[in-house]
């Protein structure tokens, strides 16, 4: 591969720039010439330019080398490759590579042989690797250790992490393997443990079958026990019913016995209740009659009878008399009451009027006197009103003539008339108008002057007043009369009002008091009449009560005692009389009744020791018992029918308690087995879970094992790749390096070697020293040899050009000369583009 020429349309500071390449090309220019631009252009031709990213802070060639002076951004490069001449023409957009254009010509014909990125097709490396490999600067070459060589070698050829280190990779794989091995170990333990658990659970599961069978048997037994209990319980229930029925039957029998027992006392038949009631009445009558016969009046009654007889021996009042006396007492009481009420009548304002008039009524004369006095007083007061209390006189203070007002007013009116006439005439006859007006004005002025004088004179008058004697006399007369009247009123205790009011009051009160006195007089007359009647009645009543030996204060009480006594006396008298009359009749009745009773006992052949009350009770008892018996019997039948009690059942062999006990035992036993089964089921419900877990763990173990196998394979493959890389690149590199080192030895006089581990040594004073002891200049040259060796091995057929960007800045003049010699030597079989900014380093 060889560059032939380049043409820059516009790229950075270059425009329309051409350059033809030789085998060795030296660009010795000052800083700022554009060496970097040319390098960038060559690279851009083979690899293109990256798009401009808005947010990118890194160096962007597209942006940096956009033509300073404008023009078509791009150009072409012509080169030989596999014995053909190619030309790559590119045009770059300002920002995006998608808008770039590229045409590749092969022997002047467009071709796609070099594909999208010609650099990759030609060199087999990407842009970054191209930069690392083809560009040699003074600061990029560094060789230190074995690993670094390896690392650098990789870095040069592919975009591998800068920290790649086969030892680190080995370590990571080893660590990962250990992780998996640990995991396998743990998983294995888990698997063993789970297996054990599964084994246990399966054993439990197997036990379950027998438990189920046992449960089934116990369930059967339990059901049987429940059945038996139910059956026995039903039987017990029926027996209980029969017992209840028997109790009702027993009650019936008892009642029947009681009935029969009573009936035994009545051999023929049981008498009817009516008949017994009749006999009972007869016996009662006998009893009453017997009592009546045996009965007599008592001593107290006799004594009382005697006392009353004695008391009323003088006079025994009849009922009519008593009634009449009673009426009289009532009349007496009412008269007394009437009298008291009349005596106690109080009239309105009676007491007040009594104070004014003290039982002395004002007569008409006195009233007339009052009225006359009042009339006279009014007359005097009216007369006084007409008499002026003062008499006045007027006196003037000067002698000015007083002109009469009427004359003045007439003069002023005349003046006004003349003035008006004058004004009126002034429009008809001028002179007459003026004359009249003048006359009117004069008259008016004179009138006004005199009017003012009059006013002035009026202000000079003096009035003098004196008391009127007639008036005073009249006034005294009124006072006297008034005092007289007041005194008169005061006599009757009227003094708190005006004379007119007092006159009115005294008249009214006198009239009212007169009426009251009249009424009282009438009442007194009535009272007198009543007293007469009362005295008469009192006399009569006193006479009566004296006749019956009564001296009671209250007539009412006295008459009541009399009444009571008379009733008592009448009763006692009747009693004493009738006692004697009835005795015979009662004895006859008694015999008849006894006959009827005897007949009853004999008719029914009842033992006479059985009293009629017992018989009566017997009948009632039989009625009650028979009723009860019927009810019980009905109840018996109803209960029997209701409970379907037809045949008696036998009692179960075991009693209910025992059966219940058995049933509970079976139930408990069933529940226990059930709980046991449920617990086992609960436990073995984990079986499936455990199996899944086991499978999972096994899978995990398997995966770990597979991963270990994969990791082994990975390690093997990476080691192999590493070895291959070494075999492919580093061993030849070592070989080539040795060749270049020989050249170095020739030029520098230093023997440089690379050992099996790619470590660089140099011989100094008979001893091999590590590259650390090399001077910077020698190290740079070693590095250059290493790079050349690398290139030789990577590109055997089509060796690419080499760009040396001032790589020898750190060499002294002696080493620089040697380096120049080396480069010159090398340029025989390599195309070199050598850039330097200093003439001393120019080759």
């Amino acid at each position, binding site marked *: 591969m060889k560059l032939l020429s380049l043409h820059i349309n516009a790229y950075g500071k270059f425009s329309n720039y051409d350059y033809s390449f030789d085998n060795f090309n030296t660009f010795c220019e000052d800083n700022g010439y554009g060496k970097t631009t040319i390098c960038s252009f060559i690279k851009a031709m083979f690899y293109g330019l990256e798009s401009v990213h808005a947010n990118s802070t890194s160096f962007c060639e597209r942006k940096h080398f956009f033509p300073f002076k404008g023009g078509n951004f791009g150009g072409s490069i012509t080169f030989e490759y596999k014995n053909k001449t190619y030309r790559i023409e590119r045009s770059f957009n300002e920002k995006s590579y998608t808008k770039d254009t590229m045409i590749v010509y092969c022997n002047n014909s467009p071709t796609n042989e070099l594909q999208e990125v010609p650099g990759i097709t030609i060199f*087999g*490396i990407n842009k970054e690797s191209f930069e690392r490999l083809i560009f040699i600067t003074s600061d990029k070459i560094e060789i230190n250790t074995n690993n670094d060589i390896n690392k650098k070698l*990789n870095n040069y*050829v*592919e*975009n*591998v*992490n800068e*920290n*790649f280190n086969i030892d680190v*990779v080995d370590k*990571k*794989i080893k660590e*990962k393997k250990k992780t998996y091995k640990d995991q396998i170990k743990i998983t294995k333990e888990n698997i063993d443990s789970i297996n054990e658990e599964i084994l246990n659970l399966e054993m439990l599961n197997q036990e*379950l079958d027998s438990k*189920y069978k046992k449960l089934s048997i116990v369930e059967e037994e339990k059901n049987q026990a429940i059945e038996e209990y139910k059956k026995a319980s039903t039987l017990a229930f029926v027996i209980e019913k029969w017992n209840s029925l028997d109790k009702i039957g027993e009650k019936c029998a008892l009642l029947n016995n009681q009935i029969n027992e009573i009936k035994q006392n009545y051999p023929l038949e049981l008498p009817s209740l009516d008949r017994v009631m009749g006999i009972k009445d007869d016996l009662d009558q006998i009893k009453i009659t017997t009592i009546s016969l045996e009965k007599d009046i008592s001593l107290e009654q006799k004594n009382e009878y005697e006392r009353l007889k004695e008391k009323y021996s003088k006079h025994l009042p009849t009922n009519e008399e008593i009634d009449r006396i009673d009426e009289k007492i009532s009349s007496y009481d009412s008269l007394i009451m009437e009298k008291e009420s009349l005596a106690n009548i109080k009239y309105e304002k009676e007491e007040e009027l009594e104070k004014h008039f003290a039982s002395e009524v004002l007569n008409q004369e006195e009233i007339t006197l009052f009225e006359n006095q009042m009339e006279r007083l009014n007359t005097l007061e009216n007369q006084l009103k007409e008499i002026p209390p003062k008499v006045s006189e007027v006196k003037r203070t000067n002698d000015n003539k007083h002109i009469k007002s009427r004359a003045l007013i007439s003069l002023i009116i005349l003046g006004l008339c003349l003035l008006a006439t004058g004004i009126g005439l002034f429009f008809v006859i001028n002179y007459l108008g003026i004359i009249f007006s003048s006359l009117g004005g004069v008259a008016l002025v004179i009138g006004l002057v005199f009017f003012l004088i009059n006013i002035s004179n009026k202000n000079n008058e003096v009035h003098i007043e004196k008391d009127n004697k007639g008036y005073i006399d009249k006034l005294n007369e009124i006072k006297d009369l008034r005092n007289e009247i007041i005194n008169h009123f005061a006599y009757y205790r009227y003094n708190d009002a005006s004379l007119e009011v007092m006159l009115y009051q005294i008249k009214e009160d006198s009239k009212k008091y007169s009426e009251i006195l009249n009424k009282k007089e009438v009442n007194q007359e009535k009272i007198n009449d009543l007293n007469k009647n009362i005295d008469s009645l009192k006399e009569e009543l006193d006479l009566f009560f004296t006749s019956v030996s009564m001296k009671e204060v209250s007539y009412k009480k006295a008459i009541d005692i009399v009444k009571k006594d008379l009733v008592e006396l009448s009763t006692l008298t009747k009693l004493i009389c009738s006692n004697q009359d009835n005795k015979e009749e009662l004895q006859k009745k008694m015999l008849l009744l006894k006959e009827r009773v005897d007949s009853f006992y004999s008719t029914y052949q009842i033992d006479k020791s059985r009293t009629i009350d017992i018989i009566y009770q017997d009948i009632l008892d039989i009625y009650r018992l028979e009723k009860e018996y019927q009810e019980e019997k009905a109840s018996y039948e109803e209960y029997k029918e209701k409970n379907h009690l037809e045949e008696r059942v036998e009692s179960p062999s075991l009693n209910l308690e025992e059966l219940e006990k058995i049933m509970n035992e079976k139930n408990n036993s069933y529940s226990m087995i*059930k709980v046991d*089964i*449920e617990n086992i*089921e609960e436990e073995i*419900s984990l079986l*499936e*879970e455990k199996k*899944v877990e086991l499978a999972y763990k096994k899978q995990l173990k398997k995966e770990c094992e597979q991963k270990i196998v*994969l*990791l082994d*394979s*990975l390690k093997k*493959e*990476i080691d*192999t*790749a*590493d070895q*291959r*890389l070494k075999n*492919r*690149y580093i061993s030849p590199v070592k070989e080539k390096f040795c060749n270049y080192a020989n050249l170095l030895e020739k030029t520098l006089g230093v023997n440089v070697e690379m050992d099996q581990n790619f470590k660089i040594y140099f011989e100094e004073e008979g001893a091999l020293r590590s590259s650390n002891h090399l001077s910077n200049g020698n190290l740079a040259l070693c590095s250059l040899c290493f790079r050349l060796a690398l290139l030789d091995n*990577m590109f055997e057929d089509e060796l690419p050009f080499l760009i040396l960007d001032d790589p020898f800045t750190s060499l002294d003049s002696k080493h620089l000369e040697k380096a120049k010699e080396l480069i010159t030597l090398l340029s025989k079989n390599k195309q070199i583009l050598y850039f330097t900014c200093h003439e001393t380093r120019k080759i």
Partner: protein
Amino acid sequence: MKILHCADIHLGSKIESKFPKEISNIRKRELMNTFSRMVDYAKSEGIKIILLSGDVFDKDKPSLKEKEYFYKIIKSNPEIDFLYLNGNHDKEGSFIEKDISNLKVFSKETITTYQYDNISISGIEITPSNSNVFYSRINLNEDNINIFMLHGEISSSSGMDKIKLESLKNKNIDYLALGHIHKRDEGKIDERGIYVYPGNLEPRGFDECGEKGFVVLDITDKISHTFIPFSKRTIHEVVVDVTGIESSFDILMKAKEKVKAIPYQDILRIRLVGELSLNVEVDEREIEVSLSSYFFVNVKNETTSSLDPSKYDNDKSLIGEFIRGVYENKTYSDEEKQKIVAMGLRVISGKEIE
């Protein structure tokens, strides 16, 4: 008359292998509850017969609690007849309670028939001994509406857990009430009859996606049937092709976009498929956490590496050497090669090995 046909309830099913333990426990309870809800539904709709076409329980020996739960529901609904055919999971039927008048079972020896007016419901439990011969014993009255219950998979041959459809032709079957296949399915037997798998009642794992429920038969002079979706939750499998996506965030966004129409109460299985470049790391857990609003989400990464080894043929670096070395080694499977390369690229670039 209305009849409810359900199957494969799998009461007491352990769902641990499909979900995390806490989710499994919830689902186990939901499964039990859905059965109860189904019976309530039947009650409210006036359905008098419920056909249980096998695998009511998940295992031969269900726990006492599960059995009690089942029998309590049956006993508390005496107006509904439960026709219970054992399946392959509960084939022993070892603990059928006695004296439950509304629980009707089927024998494995003979074909049992229950008659409801002109509707006859027959069935037999398939066993190794009868699996080939029971076909010939089917004798159904042509004038009746005949429902036949079986538990097995439709097959061209007969045998245990197999139903040879050919042998059921012209047997006067109107409705073959099947169980065993958890995915809803139906088809014709012959001119007269159809077969129906209602599918299971509640999905139990990611292999049971889609609507789950039961079938309601409306029988007049003929049978019409309707599928009633009834499960508490539905499992959805969503395939997300992430080919060419350059970041794990974009993968998450695409997955979210794909599942946005699915209700949160449901269960999701997201399968990431397609080719991803080696530098794109798929974080399944991150996607699962981001979609935690759903009842449960499982992300399965089935993507493949888009690495083209031929691109490294001329690569002169260690990576080139490494990739060539791995791909040239014939002792590795493709999967192993991908894994080794992925690990190698990480470790060479200084990252930790996953």
